């Protein structure tokens, strides 16, 4: 019942285990391994950095789990490095897209009251948020 691609996953998992059991980091490939000596592709410090960028936070126990799961997924997706894509152009959209323009005409839009109705906090015709700038 194990889907086909799990076989591709096997070596990645085994590699990770081998690294840990030796207590030494054997870089899987140069792009990655040279950056820092980790047991995992994504270390806890990386989790901190990425979480900050994404405006998320995790407690210490969660961080270890996130690092482990992301590392596994990243090792798996590095499968793409098997392919030479030097001369291949990227596809951002499945259907060729050009700029879609419309005439610059005033049209009805959402009523401000309606637009504000779902806001967690509001004042007058505005969304209200906690302080943004540091006080003096």
């Amino acid at each position: 019942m194990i889907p086909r691609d799990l076989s591709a996953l096997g070596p990645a998992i085994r590699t990770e285990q081998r690294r840990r059991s030796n207590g030494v980091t054997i870089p899987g490939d140069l792009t990655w391994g040279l950056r820092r000596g980790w047991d995992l592709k994504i270390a806890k410090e990386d989790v901190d950095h990425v979480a900050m960028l994404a405006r998320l936070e995790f407690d210490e126990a969660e961080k270890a789990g996130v690092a482990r799961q992301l590392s596994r997924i990243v090792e798996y997706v590095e499968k793409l490095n098997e392919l030479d894509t030097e001369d291949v152009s990227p596809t951002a959209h499945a259907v060729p897209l050009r700029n879609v323009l419309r005439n610059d005409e005033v049209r009805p839009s959402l009523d401000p009251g309606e637009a504000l109705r779902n806001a967690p906090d509001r004042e007058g015709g505005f969304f209200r948020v906690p302080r943004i700038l540091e006080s003096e």
Partner: protein
Amino acid sequence: MELYELAAYELREKIERREVGIEETVRAVLGKIAEVDGAVRAYVTVAREQALAKARAADERLARGEPARLLEGVPIAIKDNMCTRGVETTCASKILKGFVPPYDATVVERLEGAGAIIVGKTNMDEFAMGSSTENSGFFPTRNPWDLGHVPGGSSGGSTAAVAADEAVAALGSDTGGSVRQPAALCGVVGLKPTYGLVSRYGLIAFASSLDQIGPITKDVRDCAMVLGVIAGHDPRDSTSVPRKPCDYLKGLVPDVRGVRIGVPKEYFGEGMAPGVMAATGAALKTLQDMGAILADVSLPHSEYALATYYIVAPAEASSNLARYDGVRYGYRAPGCPDSVTMMTKTRSEGFGSEVKRRIMLGTYTLSAGYYEAYYLKALKVRTLITRDFDRAFEKCDCLVSPTSPTVAFRLGERTDDPLAMYLSDIYTVTANLAGIPGISIPCGFGEDGMPVGLQILGKHYDEATLLRVAYAFEQATDFHRMKPALRATSTSGSASASASAPASASTSTSTSPSASASDCCGRAPAGGERHA
């Protein structure tokens, strides 16, 4: 036969001939929901009063002598990631709990314009991220064929609702297989249209270059009927493709003689469950016996599709989900001293773990220094995958494969391992990456007596061929007429699963699962977003 058991086209005929009233029809479906949804839990919101009011108005309309429209009086369920004006829309996320959209998604407008009655909003994996509906922020949905098994996902609420006769038809959304895979696992028909055929306006965005809305129905005729209503250009979605409308019903001929069907060898490799293999093989034989010409084809980059998908989709998601910041709608963490803290706490408390995992993954692959190694690389491989299809379609009119490598698994079986869960989508993600249409139709039963789906993939905008092949197969078989038992069995083929499945899953048939929609919100999170 009860009204809720009828297909949409049968029901509409009865309504047109005034044999049954629309309110009567809607009450029948609402009654079925009241009877079985405590066990199935397909719905997040049942819009009982709105549905009855609209049904009465529609009855009056017919009484005045106005003609019956294409979907007149057909009770339809909508996945909870499509905006419904005045009806709560949550994406099954705590971060959107309480959000009441001030506008309708285009698909909702079109369905209602064709006379359909929306009966409710269905459960899903939070923000459509998942393959089992277990990632719902509220509660899991059960597979009507065996309540101890998942319905698939992410549109598992919609497919379970149709399978259990809790809706006559439904809409789902498909980013990597989220219509087709749960349709297969629940034994119903599910179509992912060509990218750009159906407007995404009002669909809460997951991965904008992959998302498509599609019909989930009891049979292929209904699928063609619903597709005809929701397809078409919409200026409010800039990726909507301007094309002439197509009459999909006209192409439904039970004849596949001379149709060249490609069988991609990469989709029949190791890892497929024997029961799925057997049912798919038998289906291919049936099509061949009916006069279709089978040809072996190769899609050599298939093995890279899942890795490509899991770079592209989370990258787009991390960007799309940046809008949930506690400012304009949705949940806001209380008592924060400044805005950055408020946003961080709001997102950390409001999103579930799979959503956070994908935001983290997407943010990581898009972050400085990694963009080229991951995201750009994936976009290039996406080109290779698309070329594979272009080449295959030079030799054949459509491709046939299983929809998913296994039948529905047991609840809890794959929740601890994100990658094992992702593997449910290996045969479906390619269509989203290439933008081509795909349909899943019931083609038999496999392990544990659970349904197996046959996937048919076609050329861009060639839904007509998919529907024709699907219709011909359906006319020659009766898998689509089988009805689930709506109970749980304790006999499981997979021994390892029983330990992790919740005890209630294998024993209860009538009691509600323990998780409850109300456990998520003392506060009023909310928020949804339109697409451009």
